[in-house]
């Protein structure tokens, strides 16, 4: 939704009689965020959107639709794929060969940029970063969390991954190899976490719940 679509906007027809000589008196309450001026970059965002519409480059409907698509993307698609890979070795093989095609089998749109699936095993744990920017398989796991895009994670995880994972509460035993994969604009990664022991016979739904976003980035492992 646009920053201007205030649901509680009731126009100027409400015949209020509060004096206007006091500027903007909000009494003891914190002002709503809408009451502050837009920041420079918020105003720029509104202005660019308005100009693109005015010039006929995008329509308001296209903009609205795109916002809905962005909101609809979540880790659920990735979780579904991983849970299927856990229970269907043929699917896992196809997913390791071609994530986008495997996603299509489940009616999931993984976009057009190549994504490589990497499997965690007993001997190898994998974790994903984008040191240069924020490349991320967002169509499969939603928009990236703040820390994924921030300096600390991008700088440190390739040099001291065990220490960084420990900050996430994830301890990788010393005898397990830790591999870090650096994404680019042309190739993203999705981790297939190792299926936890004791989950044999679980329903797809129950398995999917174990496959959180962080397990598909590799900073966490599924917790049954």
């Amino acid at each position, binding site marked *: *939704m646009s*920053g201007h679509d205030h649901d509680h*906007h009731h126009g100027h027809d409400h015949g209020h009689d509060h004096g206007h000589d006091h500027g903007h008196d909000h009494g003891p309450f914190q002002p709503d965020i809408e009451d502050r001026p837009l920041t420079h970059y918020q105003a720029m965002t*509104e202005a660019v959107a308005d100009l693109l519409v005015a010039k006929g480059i995008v329509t308001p409907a296209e903009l609205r639709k795109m916002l809905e698509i962005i909101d609809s993307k979540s880790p659920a698609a990735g979780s579904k794929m991983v849970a299927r890979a856990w229970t269907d070795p043929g699917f896992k093989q196809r997913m390791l060969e071609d994530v986008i095609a495997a996603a299509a089998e489940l009616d999931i749109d993984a976009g057009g940029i190549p994504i490589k699936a990497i499997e965690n095993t007993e001997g190898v744990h994998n974790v994903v970063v984008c*040191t240069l920017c924020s490349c991320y398989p967002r169509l499969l796991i939603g928009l990236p969390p703040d820390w994924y895009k921030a300096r600390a994670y*991008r700088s440190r995880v390739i040099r001291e991954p065990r220490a960084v994972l420990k900050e*996430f509460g994830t301890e990788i035993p010393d005898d397990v190899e830790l591999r870090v994969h650096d994404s680019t604009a042309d190739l993203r990664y999705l981790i297939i976490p190792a299926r936890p022991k004791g989950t044999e016979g679980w329903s797809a739904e129950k398995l999917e719940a174990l496959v959180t976003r962080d397990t598909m980035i590799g900073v966490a492992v599924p917790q049954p």
Partner: protein
Amino acid sequence: MHRRHHDMGGLPAGPVEQAEHDYAPWEKKVDAIMRLLTDKQRKIMTVDELRRGIEEMGPGIYDELTYYERWIGSVTNTLIEKGVLTVDELGRAMEEAQARHAEAAKAVCP
């Protein structure tokens, strides 16, 4: 070895701050604008152009701006470079957006 500011892999840094925020509507709008400009139908700009614009911001501004502030800054500069928008149009439209926002804020005053 010297390298550009965005190329930070392996450098020392503090602990990973794990707090997350829900994206604000304007941030999602930036994302939507970028996706529409790069889609097959329009192809007005590319992701590489977005990144180039961000990477050229330089160390001070890169760290000072939030993620989507960097994005909209880069998108806007790219659109100006390509002649899709002019600086004058942008300035006017920003004033209008600000004025519209101020009106809306007045309207919610109890």
